[in-house]
């Protein structure tokens, strides 16, 4: 039997070594022609050497194994390698994609090698002749998997703007406000912010830990902050609704906002009184 070629991609060097050692013993004819440390290298090395088989770690820095699989698509037989990811394993099984769970044992690897050999013997079943339909199915599984891992906060930074990958459905509202405090640039979680008030060219941020000036304008902030949490109540004031203690109606269709645990009183101007109407 003619020798087969393979690429191993994993960010952990010991795990690359381990897979290589086991493959050498169980499948001596297989030639591992390259090792990649991340998804980007995996794609580059694949394009350079066109191996028939690619072992891809799911979690890799920069571009993930899922990104690499999208780029390689059906041009090689892909085996995913992952450590205890219930969701990933379910997705692989569902999409009939080969996978190994780290730490794997030899018998599991033997099964995988068996399938890979069969695949190489019947190249047409997998390669160019396969229906376009198949490619779509694969892409679908990978998309769902990437989204799922992203949602669970797993380390799949994956979604670089590279075309086919659908952008992750993350809410793009501001979660942190960067403000200079002394010599450092503090990252203030928005939920700690009580209110923001225009101050000449700057905006004053008042939060649990103090006050600071930032360069963003109230107008910019209105668009960037989550409207579920923040509301503009005056031309120059945005308040965190979760920190409002009470709203007092004033004369002339205006009102005043009192905050929880603070003595500050914020003005609500006529055109923004409607914010509190339904409350």
């Amino acid at each position, binding site marked *: 039997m003619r020798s087969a070629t393979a690429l191993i991609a994993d*960010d*952990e*060097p*010991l*795990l690359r*070594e*381990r897979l290589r*050692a086991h493959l050498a013993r169980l499948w001596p004819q297989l030639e591992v022609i390259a090792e990649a*440390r*991340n998804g*980007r290298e995996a794609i580059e090395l694949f394009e350079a050497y066109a191996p028939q088989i690619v072992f891809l770690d799911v*979690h890799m*820095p*920069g571009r993930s194994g899922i990104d690499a699989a999208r780029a390689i698509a059906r041009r090689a037989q892909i085996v995913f390698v992952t*450590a*205890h*990811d219930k969701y990933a394993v379910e997705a692989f099984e569902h999409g009939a994609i080969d996978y190994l*769970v*780290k*730490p*794997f044992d030899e018998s599991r690897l033997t099964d995988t090698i068996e399938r890979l050999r069969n695949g190489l013997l019947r190249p047409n079943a997998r390669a160019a002749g396969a229906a376009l339909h198949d490619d779509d199915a694969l892409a679908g599984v990978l998309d769902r998997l990437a989204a799922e891992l992203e949602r669970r*906060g*797993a*380390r799949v*930074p994956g979604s670089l703007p590279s075309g086919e990958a659908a952008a992750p459905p*993350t*809410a*793009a*509202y*501001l*979660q*942190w*406000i*960067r403000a200079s*405090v002394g010599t*450092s*640039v*503090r*990252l*203030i*979680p928005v*939920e700690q912010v009580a209110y923001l008030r225009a101050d000449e060219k700057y905006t004053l941020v008042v939060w649990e*830990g103090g006050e600071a000036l930032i360069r963003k304008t109230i107008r910019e902030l209105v668009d*960037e902050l989550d409207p579920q949490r923040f509301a503009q109540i005056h031309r120059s004031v945005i308040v965190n609704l979760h920190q409002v203690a009470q709203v007092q109606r004033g004369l002339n269709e205006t009102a005043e906002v009192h905050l929880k645990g603070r003595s500050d009183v914020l003005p609500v101007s006529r055109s923004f009184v409607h914010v509190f109407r339904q409350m």
Partner: protein
Amino acid sequence: MSAQALPLVRPMKALLATLTWRRLLLTLAMVIVIAALAQPIFITPYPELVWQLLVIALLVQLAFSAAGQWPLPRVPHWVSRVLAVVLAAPLATLALQLALVGGSWSEFVGNHGMLHGFYAVTVLVLVFAPSMALGALYRERDAQAQHDALAFALEKSTLEKQALDARLKLLNAQIEPHFLFNTLANVQELVESRSDRAGPVLSSLIAYLRAAMPQLDDGDDATLAREAALVRAYLELMHLRMPDRLVFSIDIPAELGALRFPAMALLTLVENAVRHGIDPAEQGGRIDVRAERSSAAGEVRVSVADTGIGLLDTAAPGTGLANLRERLQVFYGHGARLELAENAPNGVCASIAFHPA
């Protein structure tokens, strides 16, 4: 007047609410007994004496409650209430007597028997009412103390529950299977290839598991030194897994090691630095763990600085940081802070500042 009448409705209701059945019955009993005892000095028949005294007693009681309802500024509570009783006694008696003679002042003054009765009743009421007022005050204070004790117990149990919740959340979040199995895969390779490093790496893993796994009690052994040991074991394992991508240093002065420190708090920050800073970066980076005491205020600051990919403005903060913030409050009180800052030129510096207990 009518504008003021409305806001008075509520206190009036509260005032009437102080006339409980218990109090009314007690008053009735007292009046019956006192009337019987005082009968010899009055010419008024007994039943009449009872109802007259009853009316006066109720009026005095209302005065007592009213004084409690509208406290006077700068006058001790008990003084104003006893004073109300003392003033109300003659006034209520006078009002009753006047009512009995149809409101005619001259008839009241001219009637010797009535004047006599007025003095007798006033003295009688003045003898009993203040002591009863003091008794009632004592009971009220007792009830207040009981109420305070209950409120205190409630607050204490709420705090304890919060602390427990925080710990349970932490317990759920710890020892990620992904971390554990990946590390075990590395150990497996070292063992299979008969590497000399297998022993030390296993030691690190055991140290990590021992510190992270069993008890999350923030007891006496929850110290900064212990936490530092846990963090070192964790970082050594991560360094094994990504030798070319992670460099770290831990600098915690020995004199700070004995300070009480909530279990897993520092590990949470270090894990965040690895997961969100170093691991997603192709080139990796370094993590510096440091503790120092600011000379001025005696405040201790423990920080974890990484040179990773940094934080996007729109990155949703994980529950880990919120939980940690909560635990710091429970552990150190409200003086403790968890702060995040940019680490120039790239990465994040997270720090915990607290006043040692």
